[in-house]
């Protein structure tokens, strides 16, 4: 290497250090970009599309019952097996033709039982948020919630009953709407 190019490379090297210092100094003067979490939260428009845990979608007319038809597809498709539907069979009250409710009538009416959803259990600890259950639900009874600030002290706190959650939400909502209606009325 000739002396000239060597001295030039030294000069360039030292200049590069100064450029580096300049860049850090510039950034030092710029405002910070941190979100101070407990006092500030991420703005809602940045949370668009973010997936929280799944939740049940209520029927349009009845906010207390989900659209779910208990087909169990979500539970079988789930890769982690974290969905469990608890159902009971409830007899459909059907008036027997004779009018009397005898023992034999009940036996013949065995096929006319109706499944009823008692609980929709989600073990959020194992959920990988792949969205297969939402995508596969044939009646669109599942969607992602927006509960993203979740924290707890134990594993058990993340085992949800989505049906109870839906009802509690609907209750709060109707309680809010009720006084409005009253005032309107």
């Amino acid at each position, binding site marked *: 290497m000739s002396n000239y190019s060597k001295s030039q490379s030294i000069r360039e*090297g030292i200049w590069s250090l100064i450029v*580096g210092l300049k860049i850090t100094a510039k950034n030092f003067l710029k405002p910070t970009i941190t979100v101070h979490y407990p006092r500030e939260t991420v703005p809602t428009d940045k949370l668009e599309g973010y997936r929280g845990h799944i939740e049940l979608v209520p029927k349009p007319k009845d906010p207390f019952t989900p659209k779910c038809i208990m087909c169990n597809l979500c539970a079988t498709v*789930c890769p982690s097996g974290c969905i469990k539907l608890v159902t009971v069979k409830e007899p459909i009250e059907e008036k027997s033709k004779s009018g009397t409710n005898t023992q034999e009538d009940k036996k013949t009416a065995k096929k006319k039982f109706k499944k009823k959803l008692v609980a929709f259990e989600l073990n959020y600890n194992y959920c990988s*948020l792949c969205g*297969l259950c939402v995508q596969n639900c044939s009646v669109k009874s599942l969607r992602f919630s927006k509960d993203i600030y979740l924290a707890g002290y134990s594993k058990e706190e993340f085992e949800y009953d989505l049906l109870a959650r839906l009802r509690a939400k609907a209750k709060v909502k109707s309680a809010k709407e009720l006084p409005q209606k009253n005032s309107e009325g």
Partner: protein
Amino acid sequence: MLDTTLDSLDLRGDFYTRNFQPHPSENRLILNMGPQHPSTHGVLRVILEIDGEYIVRAEPVLGYIHRMHERMAEVKRYEQYLPNLGRIDYLHALAWNWAYVGAVERLMGLEVPKRAEYIRVITCELNRISSHLLWWGAYLLDLGAFTPIMYAFADREIIMDILQRITGSRLTYCYYRFGGVSQDIDDKFIEQTKELCKYLRPRLKMYKDFVTDNIIFRKRVEGIGIIETEILRKYGATGPVLRGSGIAYDVRKTKPYSVYSEIEFDVPSYELEDAFGRYLVRMQEMEESLKIIEQCLEQLPAGDFILPKAPKRPKPPAGEVYFTVEGARGEIGVHLLSDGSAYPYRLKLRSPSFSNLSLFPEVVKGTLLADAVSILGSLDLVIPEIDR
């Protein structure tokens, strides 16, 4: 002043140290770099035999986060395996998504709609940029500069915000489905992505001024970790490691899949063969990715984002398929064998980092400890991908 009682303690090492063949001589030191070491990025462990600070021999030890993904594939149905893919290489999750989904599609003969292909290219390239950004920051962290990773994260955050709106997750994406993607992109996404492209170019220029031209950085990477083509071939290295040695092999270009053949972009390669060459390739690739994204946004056709007739719970016919895509770290391959049932018969995941790391012992011989860190970083390893 060593305590003689030390011999009674079990200091003979564990299984891997004892099997570090041939045994080192008396005047050399065996050093366990990792599994908890700041510059092995996760839980890689490298047994080093050192003479002073010179490395005589090195042997990586794997398996600290081995999860047996290949066995998991055999006990899960095809669609149930999808979330696993995002967790193999968490930095370029969408490439793994694509490799698997593509393999199944090829086996079933599914024709993916044009729009879905474009969406896949856009999201995959966004993910590649975010992966390279993280690598850039982490590599500089290895070399002792603390600030670049914070700048890289600030930019990466924007990409993650954009992808989050569409895919629903920020890191372990599970977005691609058989025959398309799970959600269509909208105008806001397109607008945000265009803004990102405009924003990132000056940032990349700033990175160049800040780091690439820096004399201390240059001295740390130039001429370090020279990998000859012959070694690359025998170890099957791919990706930027290969292109840093002057071989312009890129699956996107050499054997185009999806719509890559319709897009104009260069495959950067440098014949430097050293860590700096690999560094330059990745920096250049980010700009190429931006180019690809911009072209795709312009050419984006209307149509379905997923094949309407695509089976949600597929049962591919019996057969074999080997599908490769270009990930941020190299060629990702999925070798899938089906016996016609709803469960894969055998799924082999060919991870690029695995092959890239396997040449590390060859390259690191005779270098300084600080250079070993520099070389290890320049290979861009993601340990979950190696261990699978």
